[in-house]
């Protein structure tokens, strides 16, 4: 794969925005100002960006409870997201949805989902629509190693195969569903891609902590699906840096595990090492991006904090479409 300078800087920036967004939330949540459950995506950035960088705004994704990374990579407004998570009126969903329910149909982000396994069938529906529309769009479901055990995911895979629609199943295996390990809960010897193969789909496997490996594998997959070959799947081996949700004591982690994955499986570090090593970008180029992103997130937090609370009188608005 060949990347020009702008593509490389853009990919790095998007991954850094996700990382900084999440690391900042990790701090902000400690203040008690942010309500509800927040599931951080830090560690998995190369998956969201490696995939969404190849999509157009017309392609449609459905996400999970751990959706901030997918949202940012697909082009959701970062300030609008921050306001949503802070429960503010200016949030992308007016403070009604919160971290687990961010959506922006205008950028092809059909919604994060609080129901594990809730999304995969919807991606098949999006793919059915896409095929009828005939513009070469695809429907993509992001699912975790936990969601791959849900009946809805199985049904969605089979439906996609029998209808031969352009649906893509992205399995982000971060090795945990809440406190339970994939070694216990995924019966197919920890191998999720083989399930997709079992349903009759072509499946890819890649290192989800490496942007270039993820990108390259997904490029092949996307070409295959866009060419009208029906659905396909990819399993990405990745890591979650924080607890399942903020506040999780993570007693299920092995000793030193977080230090190890931060040291050895950091997609931002790996990206930097590769592009600087190949003299495509310099450390200064990337440091400059880092500084800009930190300022961007700082501003998003300040604006979120300053934004108004939603008006309680609107609590039962938006339940139905208004007709008259």
């Amino acid at each position, binding site marked *: 794969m060949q990347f020009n300078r702008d593509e490389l800087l853009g990919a790095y920036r998007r991954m850094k925005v996700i990382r900084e967004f999440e690391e900042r939330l990790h701090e902000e949540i400690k203040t008690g100002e942010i*309500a*509800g*459950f927040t599931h951080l995506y830090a560690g998995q950035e190369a998956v969201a960006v490696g995939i969404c960088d190849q999509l157009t705004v017309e392609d449609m994704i459905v996400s999970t409870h751990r959706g901030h990374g997918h949202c940012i990579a697909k082009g959701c407004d970062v300030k609008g997201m921050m306001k949503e998570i802070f*429960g*503010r009126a200016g949030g992308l*969903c007016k*403070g*009604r*949805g*919160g*971290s*687990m*329910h961010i959506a922006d149909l205008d950028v092809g982000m059909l919604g994060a*989902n*609080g*129901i*594990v*396994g*809730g999304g995969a069938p919807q991606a098949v529906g999006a793919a059915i629509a896409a095929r009828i529309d005939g513009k070469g769009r695809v429907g993509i479901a992001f699912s975790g190693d*936990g*969601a791959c*055990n*849900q*009946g*809805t995911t199985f049904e969605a895979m089979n439906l996609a195969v029998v209808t031969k629609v352009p649906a893509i199943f992205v399995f982000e295996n971060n090795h*945990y*569903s*809440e*406190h*339970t*390990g*994939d*070694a*216990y*809960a*995924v*019966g197919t010897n920890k191998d999720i891609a083989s399930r997709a193969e079992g349903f009759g789909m072509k499946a890819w496997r890649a290192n989800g902590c490496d942007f270039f490996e993820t990108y390259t594998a997904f490029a092949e997959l996307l070409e295959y699906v866009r060419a009208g070959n029906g659905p396909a799947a990819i399993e990405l081996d990745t890591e979650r840096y924080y607890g399942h949700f903020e506040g999780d004591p*993570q*007693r*299920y*982690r*092995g*000793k030193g*595990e977080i230090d190890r994955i931060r040291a050895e499986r950091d997609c931002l570090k790996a990206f930097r090492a590769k592009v600087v090593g190949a003299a495509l970008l310099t450390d200064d180029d990337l440091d400059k991006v880092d500084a800009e992103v930190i300022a961007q997130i700082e501003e998003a937090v300040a604006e979120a904090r300053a934004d108004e*609370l*939603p008006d*309680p*009188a*609107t*609590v*039962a*608005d938006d*339940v139905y479409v208004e007709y008259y």
Partner: protein
Amino acid sequence: MAIMNIREAIVSTLHAEMERDSDIILLGEDVVGGNGTAGGPEAIGGIWGTSPGLWEKFGPERVIDTPISESAIIGAAAGAALAGKRPVAELMFADFVGVSLDQIWNQMAKFRYMFGGKTKCPAVVRLVYGAGMSTAAQHSQSVYAMLTAMPGLKVVLPTTPADAKGLLTEALRGDDPVMYFEHKTLYGVKGEVPEGDYRQRFGEARVVREGGDVTVIACGRMVSFSEKAADKLAADGIGMDLLDLRTTSPLDEDAILESVEQTGRLVVVDETPPRCSLAADICAMVAQRAFSSLKAPPQMVTAPHSPIPFARNLERAWVPSPQKVEEAVRRVLAFR
């Protein structure tokens, strides 16, 4: 009597009952916790902390961590019950009843009737429900009304540690499928719990207050909200009969009617939208059976007809408040 909170009452009852009856099994997501990880199992004992120590004591055949597969969890509980066991299945959030509804609605609720009374399905489903923690539209719902509407299921909602023990014990000793609702904001509620064998019959409402001027019916978190309203009203000399339903199926119709016949004024408080709600059901029952006793139209204090919002201030606006209960009581008393 021991002092403990609702969480501790549930944990100790599960321990005691599993000790007593080797047919009782427990299954659910992370009810052990840590399986397949370097940290190892028994790390948490459920994300709500309602099953610690059970896996260690009763082993992996009786305490089963499941993958995220609610249909299979509830379906397996239904099958194990038909096969002679007494399963306790946990839904980490009651909202996930949506994922597993067929196994509850078309399966366990109907076995006994469909099979001509020949079978029993002694399964207990524990559902963690309720708003109040900003867990938004898919993790906050009080789905007891729709399960109450389903013939074949029993529905219980403890609000005190004593009832948590008494109702869970009753559920585990009975032979019908029981939906055992645990409000996520009530786990820390403390109180006295009787020692030893302690059962609370289903269909017996708890008299929380006797005041004589107005009847307030509530369940779950709405009981304590109604008590707050009662305190305010008492300062103005208004006395509230407050009933905690304890179980919505069976429903203690007699206790409701008896109180309304004396007060003539009814307020029902319900943590759900109003349409086809428990509140609507009770108002209809009273209108039909105690019409001549009524001195004012019954009032329902419910959430609005909308999903549950995320933002703290929106969620507070959605959940019925003590103030709304107080206002409703004043309305029924002012009616001429």
